[in-house]
């Protein structure tokens, strides 16, 4: 039997089936300082637990706040236990209502968050994720006196902060079937919801926040549509300090008091020679920190004394910025940031960042060398560790022996 067909035609069809798909990654938007990322709420009309689930898994190092509250039966005090891993900032309860604020620094896995209650009651939970918050000991202060009442103006109580840049978080629960239309004192309403199938026994819950930049005593009053027994609370959480800076830190992120970057040694020579070093190592990283609202910055390095600076032993000198003779006539320092690596903090990215190109100091021409640049699309509330920047100094021939030093300044500029 002869069944063979045209091999060429088969191959032609096969080749036409080759499809290449390319994708373009979207550019993430920059977040604002101390910004709420997401919030959710949930209720139950009678149960010993209530749970809410974020739309997306919370990001590492973001602050999570969970508020759980209940309308109690008037006879029994319901105690609230916070979500697993959360710390209680404020928890109050009596026979009328219970409310508690819990917080946690996200480890990047939290999505469903629940509270448990000591009795089966109608209760609610509202959860929040914030960026730009302190990642260690984020709680600054809470209201120290109980704030309760029965008017249509439930109040948060007052909190006295000790940290200038705080996020104030206020919340109320009221035993009324109503709605919270606003919070005063520049607080932003974030949640307003009710529960209860019987309108006469519904409870209303609300949360609001405000970022402040100075210490003081703060409070807020909400506007409710109907009166009811209410309870208010307020907590102050530390936002990241507003700063655009650079530093040298060790492997644990602790500022290095006297960091050093080893340079290769060289013996006295009758010819020009290059010595090299590395700016930024695993134990001494150049950390660029931006917790301002501006994502655009430049980090550059220059001689502290300007173009007239010199490597010096105190008695003998040579140049760091003379390109003549390929740097061998009087000496030239070349810095190559492009050989380095920018490592973002957890939850951050290198989007919008570029490393500078290799450049040699040249008096009056290149007096400052760009190490890294953040553009408008860079993320904020982040830090990046710069390592592996190569240094190369041309040492002119016949330099006198000695330990030479040069003062350089790293400038982080908002632009």
């Amino acid at each position: 039997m002869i069944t063979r067909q045209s091999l060429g035609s088969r191959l032609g069809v096969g080749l036409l089936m080759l499809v290449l798909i390319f994708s373009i990654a979207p550019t993430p938007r920059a977040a604002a300082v101390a910004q709420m990322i997401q919030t959710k709420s949930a209720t139950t009309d009678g149960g010993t637990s209530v749970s809410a689930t974020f739309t997306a898994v919370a990001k590492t190092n973001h602050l999570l706040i969970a508020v759980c509250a209940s309308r109690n039966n008037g006879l029994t005090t319901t105690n609230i236990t916070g979500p697993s891993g959360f710390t209680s900032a404020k928890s109050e309860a009596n026979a009328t209502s219970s409310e508690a604020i819990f917080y946690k620094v996200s480890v990047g896995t939290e999505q469903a968050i629940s509270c448990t209650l000591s009795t089966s009651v109608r209760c609610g939970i509202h959860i929040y994720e914030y960026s730009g918050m302190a990642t260690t000991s984020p709680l600054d202060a809470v209201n120290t006196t109980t704030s309760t009442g029965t008017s249509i103006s439930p109040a948060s109580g007052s909190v006295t902060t000790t940290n200038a840049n705080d996020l104030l978080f206020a919340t109320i629960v009221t035993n009324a079937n109503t709605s919270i239309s606003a919070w005063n004192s520049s607080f932003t309403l974030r949640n307003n919801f009710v529960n209860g199938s019987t309108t006469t026994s519904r409870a209303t819950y609300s949360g609001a926040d405000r970022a402040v930049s100075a210490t003081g005593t703060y409070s807020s009053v909400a506007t409710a549509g109907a009166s009811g027994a209410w309870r208010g609370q307020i907590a102050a959480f530390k936002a990241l300090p507003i700063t655009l800076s650079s530093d040298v830190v060790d492997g644990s992120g602790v500022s290095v008091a006297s960091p050093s970057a080893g340079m290769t040694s060289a013996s006295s020579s009758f010819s020009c020679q290059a010595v090299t070093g590395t700016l930024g190592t695993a134990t001494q990283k150049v950390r660029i920190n931006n917790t301002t609202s501006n994502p655009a910055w430049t980090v550059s390095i220059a001689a502290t004394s300007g173009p007239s600076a010199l490597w010096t032993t105190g008695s003998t000198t040579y140049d760091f910025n003379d390109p003549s003779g390929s740097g061998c006539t009087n000496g030239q320092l070349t810095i190559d940031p492009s050989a380095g690596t920018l490592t973002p903090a957890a939850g951050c990215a290198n989007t919008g960042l570029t490393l500078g190109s290799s450049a040699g100091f040249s008096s009056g021409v290149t007096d400052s060398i760009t190490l890294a640049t953040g553009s408008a699309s860079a993320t904020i509330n982040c830090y990046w560790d710069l390592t592996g920047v190569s240094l190369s100094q041309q040492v002119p021939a016949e330099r006198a022996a000695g330990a030479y030093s040069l003062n350089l300044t790293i400038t982080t500029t908002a632009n």
Partner: protein
Amino acid sequence: MRKPSLVASLVALLMLLVAPTNVSAVEYGGVGGAPAHPQASNPRTKSIFIYTLKPGQSTTDGIKLYNNTEKQRTIAVYAVDSILASGGAFSCAQAADPKLDVGSWLQLDSTQVTLEPGANKIVPFTVMTPSTASAGEHDGCIAIQDASMTETPSSQNGVTLGFRSAIRVVVTIPGKIVKQLSLTSVNVAGQKDGGYKVTSVARNNGNVSLDTNVQVKLVGLFGNTVAQNEGTYPILARSSAQWSFDFKNPSWGGWYHATTTATYNSDPASGLGESKGGKRAVELNSAVVFVAPSGIPAIIELAILLLLIFALVIAVIKWRQNRDVKHHWRDYTVKDHETLNHIAHAHNVSWKSVAKANKLKPPYHLEKGQKLRLPPKSEK
């Protein structure tokens, strides 16, 4: 004449280091600042100072200083001119440098402020432009630094590092404002890691800085964009700026070029940070470069190439066979009781070839008088 042994001895005696041995930081610059009174209409003023002042005119403002450390800090605050860092990036002159432009127009009410941990304070300042100031943009900086860093650190072995932060100060003198940007080069260069670096250079020929969105695309032979990168950067007046974007190796390989598009607000009446007026885009392509495929795509493409070669060989063979049948084979009329095998054997050719050339199909029954094409007898 100096003997070699003497030279060696001298070198041995001079086995002293002449190279810098260490880079050391003196102080942590955990202090910062921000404009104290940003303009609600211009969000850029939240992070930099922007003024439009006539020659001889002055204005007052303030810088809010922060102490983000856990210790009391004395913060030095001072004005300097701006300078261009390598690649055209904005940077600030050193405190030791002479002040010739905006650095000399700024008068701060305080040059040192002591702040408790976590505290902040506003330092007022005055901007006074000289009567001779030329039209266009002038830039400077207000630098913030731990007070211990304002003086040159004492000499130590190696390099001493200082840290400071600075806020850009933009003063525009009204007059003939020119906004003109051009792209001067786009180059693609291979990297050691197999990726590609696209370096674009733009020239601002105007007299004001331009916040420029730079978009770089890696474009395939058929105009398909395989990757892109972008950022928005200030390009200072009368200067060039350079950006390098890294791209991963397009694993399928092929011929690519980079296209850089620079977009900026071209309305002279629109100040820095303002969005009124139209935008203008300039575009420039790099030369086409060949990128070798890598990884699994390379194996797939190699297999496809081999298949193509194989198909080509087959096609050539078939073409030659068809040509022979058409030009050299002759007509033959089937006689009574002749079979395909018999005819093929008689003409010294395989029955498969005869069947294929004559498009015969199973069961290959031949009729008396049927016309066939067969090779000439000479091929026996």
